[in-house]
């Protein structure tokens, strides 16, 4: 009379007992990318909030248009206090999204670690290797997002990666059950350099053990990790590390593979799920997505008339600060541009549909990474920096440039990759936001020194209490 069996759920200790169950666990780890604390919102959104606290160059705030024109990049007009704190470069340890990022990324890491520890049922060696490589890829991505959010930059004026605290490296499976969790020793934060080393080791393993197309499940190139996804992420990691030779090689590996092509219209990389330009995307659809109403990138970035809340708008100063030419397709607010106008405000169109994919990384960034690496002295490129930059410019109907400088690349990155969550880290890496705001003090972002806890996420208060090994930023 007292026996109740759990309906429609597997017991934990049976959850890895067949190869299909292990594959399902792996897909489940990918599904975590949809979380608010991961690429569902914050990985793409939070860094951009830090870029501009709403100060306006050269003037005060005028009546009526105050919301639309404040700042020079992203204008935060919302009332989620967690995001308001980021925008004010003033995050408190009890910030809800400080916790969201921590929990979402460690969930991915631990799910990957659990898979890596439970491969016994996968008897096919090739399959086991592929699953390991994908798991390590996901683990690397999550560690990387954590370290650049909570830790000081690897490569920046004043950064000391071998002593600056990053985050906890987790490579062992999480304890099995409640008693294991509460007998675990304290876990201190590892230094930034060690975290990068772990990230790179995992990504290299993934790059070297996955095919160019991951045919498990037989779906789009941009769905699951493959060797090119790993290369693209490595390019990003090396770039932040200031290792321009390695970054250039990985970016070139992706470009030269011929698997991806730049689309004719830059915005199509966002409007078309799994397009030819997409290297990796969060897979969203109508029934399974990152949230449609009170959270999710699209909710924040879109106007009321376009299904959003109009919380994140584009400063009126942004187009001129970024230096778009008048004929640049990306600037157009009517056809195929990155922006649209609703009411008196400008909005970014890159994240306009919560029921469709969110791009994580795409080919255009590879061209810009390769161009920058070339300009910074890497000699391995099969194209000139001008050619790479112009590949991006010409499809946008912008005038080709010759004799590109590093500043040109940085501005082209701004024009092409704006509101994709990378700008903040670029600013830290290159010594401030002066390429966007000429005359701004060196080594500051919006007036705040690059190496300052105000430009870091706070270690969540909840975690500090639970883990005596942690210290606050």
């Amino acid at each position: 009379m007292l026996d109740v069996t759990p309906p429609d759920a597997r017991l934990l200790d049976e959850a890895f007992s067949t190869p299909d169950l292990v594959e399902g666990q792996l897909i489940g780890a990918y599904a975590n990318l949809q979380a608010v604390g991961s690429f569902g919102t914050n990985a793409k959104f939070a860094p951009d909030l830090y870029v501009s606290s709403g100060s306006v160059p050269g003037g005060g705030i005028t009546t009526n248009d105050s919301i639309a024109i404040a700042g020079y990049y992203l204008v935060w007009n919302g009332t989620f206090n967690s995001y308001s704190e980021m925008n004010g470069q003033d995050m408190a340890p009890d910030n809800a999204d400080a916790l969201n990022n921590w929990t979402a990324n460690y969930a991915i890491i631990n799910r990957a670690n659990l898979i890596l520890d439970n491969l016994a049922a996968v008897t096919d060696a090739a399959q086991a290797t592929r699953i390991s490589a994908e798991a390590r890829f996901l683990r690397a991505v999550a560690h990387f997002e954590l370290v650049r959010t909570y830790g000081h930059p690897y490569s920046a004026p004043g950064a000391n990666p071998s002593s600056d605290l990053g985050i906890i490296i987790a490579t062992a499976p999480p304890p099995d059950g409640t008693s294991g969790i509460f007998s675990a020793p304290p876990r201190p934060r590892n230094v930034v350099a060690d975290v990068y080393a772990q990230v790179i080791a995992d990504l290299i393993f993934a790059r070297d053990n996955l095919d160019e197309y991951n045919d498990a499940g037989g779906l789009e190139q941009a769905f699951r990790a493959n060797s090119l996804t790993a290369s693209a992420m490595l390019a990003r990691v090396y770039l932040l590390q200031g290792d321009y030779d390695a970054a250039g090689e990985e970016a070139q590996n992706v470009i030269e593979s011929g698997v991806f092509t730049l689309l004719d219209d830059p915005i199509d990389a966002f409007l078309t799920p799994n397009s030819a330009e997409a290297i990796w995307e969060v897979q969203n659809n109508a029934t399974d997505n990152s949230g449609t109403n009170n959270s999710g990138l699209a909710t924040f970035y879109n106007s009321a008339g376009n299904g959003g809340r109009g919380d994140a708008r584009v400063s009126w100063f942004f187009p001129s600060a970024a230096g778009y030419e008048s004929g640049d397709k990306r600037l157009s607010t009517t056809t195929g541009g990155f922006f649209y106008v609703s009411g008196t405000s400008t909005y970014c169109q890159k994240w306009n549909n919560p029921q469709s994919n969110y791009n994580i990384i795409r080919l255009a960034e590879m061209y810009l990474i390769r161009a920058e690496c070339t300009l910074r002295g890497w000699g391995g490129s099969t194209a000139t920096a001008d050619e790479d930059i112009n590949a991006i410019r010409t499809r946008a109907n912008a005038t080709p440039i010759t004799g590109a400088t590093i500043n040109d690349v940085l501005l082209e990155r701004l024009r092409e990759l704006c509101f994709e969550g990378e700008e903040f880290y670029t600013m830290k890496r290159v010594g401030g936001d002066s390429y966007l705001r000429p005359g701004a003090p060196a080594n500051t972002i919006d007036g705040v020194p690059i190496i300052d806890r105000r430009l870091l996420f706070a270690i969540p208060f909840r975690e500090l209490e639970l883990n005596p090994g942690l210290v606050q930023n």
Partner: protein
Amino acid sequence: MKQFFTLLGVVWTVACWALAPSGIAAEGTGNRAWLQSTTISGAVADEDGNPLVGATVQAFNTQQNRVVAGGYTDADGRFSIQLASTADVVIRISYVGYRTEEVALSQGVSALEVQLQLDAAGLDEVLVVGYTTAYKRDITGSVATVRGADIENLPVNTLENALQGRMAGVQITQGSGKLGQGITIRVRGAASVSASSQPLYVIDGIIVTTDGRESITGEATNPIAELNPNDVESVQVLKDASAAAIYGSRASNGVVIITTKRGKAGKTQANIGYFYAFQSPAAKNREFLNADEYVQFFTQANGGVEVFSRDAFLPGRNFETNWQDEVLQNSNAYQVDFNVSGGTDKTQVYFSAQYLDQEGILVGNAFNRISARLSFDHKANDWIKFGITSALSRTRNQRVQDDNAFSSPMQAVALSPLTPRFFPTDEDPALRQAYIDAGIVNPSGQIYIDPIAGYYNYFNELSDGFQNASVIRNLTTAYAEFSLIPWLTYRATMGADVRFQTEEIWKSRYTLDGAPTTTFPLGGLSYSSYDRAVNITTNHTVNFARQFGQHTVSALVGFEYQDFQATFNSVTGENLGDPSFVYVSSATDFTGGSSGPSDYSFVSYFSQANYKYKDRYLLTVSARVDGSSRFGTSSRYGFFPAASVGWVLSEEEFLQGLSAVSFLKLRASYGVTGNAEIGNLARFGLVSQVQYRDQAAFTPGSIQPDDYQWETSTTFEVGIDWGLFDNRISGVVAWYDRQTTDLLLSVNVPADLTTGPLTTLRNIGSLQNRGIEIEITSNNLIGAFKWSTTLNFASNRNQILDLQGQILTAGRDAANRAIEGQPIGSFFLPLYAGVDPSNGDALFVAGYNADGTPILTDDFFDAPRFLAGDPNPDFTGGVINNFSFKGFDLSVFFQFSYGNEIYNGAGRFMTSNGWFADNQTREQLSEAWTTPGQITNVPRLDWNSNNGARASSRYIYDGSYLRLKTLTFGYTLPQQVVERLKVRSIRVYFSGQNLLTFTDYPGWDPEVSSLGQVNIGQGQDFYTAPQIRSAAFGVNIGL
């Protein structure tokens, strides 16, 4: 605040002094007589000589220790019973609220005239205490009682509302003024940290379903909202371990026993009732900025440069909207009620029907209930009796969003006063179209999003959506009782509680949730859910009761089985298009769905024995064994014993001389109860399946807990039940200490050690509830003008004893937590330390110097959390004064809570010094820091930056209150008038709820619990709707 409590004390003291002991009633006594086969008839009246209708008349054979015949008084207060023999027979006459009289039969006397005396102390009241009944006089545990008659016809929509404040130690909190929402009941404080602290509900001997199905977007519904309060004969709350232990593992949180009305023998009587109520918000409005002040506020916050012009919404046009007035409304309610009761001494029936229709004080909120009950009892012969009660009801609830949603009604106050609710129709059509195209205005002209404050307009939820919940519920209880031999009874009870709940939600394309997307360009969202809960309980008891000289012994053994099965399914559809299509069937795409069962079962064996010697020495022992599917095989069964003793001193000879003391009983009890209110599947570590890119994806559902056992509470209680001056004043004083051990804690897990779940269940730690309870009932004046006073007072100290370092937090901003050595739910937040007089910055406490002085900082990052407040009241209670004179009756009931604190999480938005463009509370404008050297508690206004609007003790307020909970004034028409109208009785009345509230809480209502039935997250206010004040005018007609 304090003065009101002082005032209460004075009134009470004066009342006590005004008392005068009056004469002692004579008691009918006589010689034992011997008569053969005769009819005994008589009349029963109250002390004023008015006939008592429906009094119970029993012939009791003292030798056989059983009732040999019985009946009820008729409409004239007369009775007649047939007796085979009058040998050893006494006639026992009882009536609720009166002292039971026993009349021995004298030879030749066949007509009795009996006057019953008011029983102020209720000592002869029969209380339902679990599976048996007992005289209050003989009870050694702690039982609180409310009579159905005291709570009839109140303009409330659920029984708990009517019970609020009437029982010492039973704290009832309605979370908000939303209709049909869940209600929190705490019997002597929270006995658990993570498991539920709601009491067990037993209606007519059957454990009923109390876990309300949570709506997809709303708070939990009230599980007994389907019960018609007018059907309630009595409510008993078993508070201590001795009383409650018979319910074993279910009883740690107390047991609420509801007995419904049944038919009475005698002339068939019917009652018709009707009331109409005018309702309004019970508490004052918050003060927000008006349009001019709003402009001024943000200009000041922006260093003198204007942020919003007066015509910010539409250049050249000044609007002014008081959103608070828009969303709160005055509303109406009415109730029609009918019941009929009657029968013979063999068969009795009761039937009732009721319809209640209530509109909320929040625009868009409404509740109605239609219910009927039929009860039937039949005595087949001397030894078989059986009966059935079946109640069927339907409630319909137009619900509103939970507090945290942007579409929650009270969040409308965040909108700017500069914004109109509708775009004016006389404006330039092209401009109007431009606003519509921008999505700021809907085609109807209603504002969609306030472009100034950036908030969604709640009214679109009403014009373009609905959220309707409907419950159909049947509670049927049947029993059969066999008196096998005079002193041995077997009783079988079977109950079915069947509940169907459906919920339909629709949001048109012009709402936030239904707005068109690229994927669903038609927009619109519809949701439909269905929930069926079938709860079958059966119990079997064998009762033994026998008197041996001066020894009275009774005992009970029993078995109970409860089987609960629920199924739930829901579906969400999107892309509905034209707003005339509202149901899921019109959707082009189904975007969500769920289904699945939720089952549990309990098997229980129990036994109880009572022993009484010389009517003065009392002993009760009981034990129960419970097994539950919620526990693993190693700890599936729990054992819950209890014992209690009582000593009725007033029966002792040495107290006989003390005539002032009419009743005095000392009692003590000790026992163990349990708590099993954890998740049905909490003992499993589970993985569930979701989807990702149309692939099967597994997601961890829970961490595998270690084997856990029952959470148990051990309670020790001592009490004194007393009566003075022939029980003109009587009462109870009790002290208890309840220790809960092996807490089933839902503890925080470090995120870096889990695959997702952030809490797990651990079986460690302990907590304590200790307190005193005082109940006093006094008949201050008797005679033609009657005045009685009832006071109940309870002070409970909750303390977490041991958590072994576990961290448990709850509530908005994780403001509440369980801390060792502190009451549960204590606020733990950075301490706000006012304003730096030099620059107006908000200050917080960073730490303390060795001498104890605080170190202040303006950098919130350096402000750790400290103990910052306590949401638990120091004491609670109520005072009821009843007056009557001739046909007039007046009842005045004050209820109070003292010393509890409230965290207003919404303060970070509404009192944010201009961090946001949310409309701001008005006092900031006059009190905010403006000039160096200024001493104030409100930091400098600072547009768009955070100066003090952090989660901190700044938003903790005193939540003490004194409330005129109920005021009833009635007039019963004189008999002569009534007779001419050919009816039995007519009473007209006024009944008010929440008419007055005295509090220092600056929010809407101090009676607030945004999070509902929680243990840790208490005392939270987040745009929580105020309670309802209602003034009802009604009439009752007896036929």
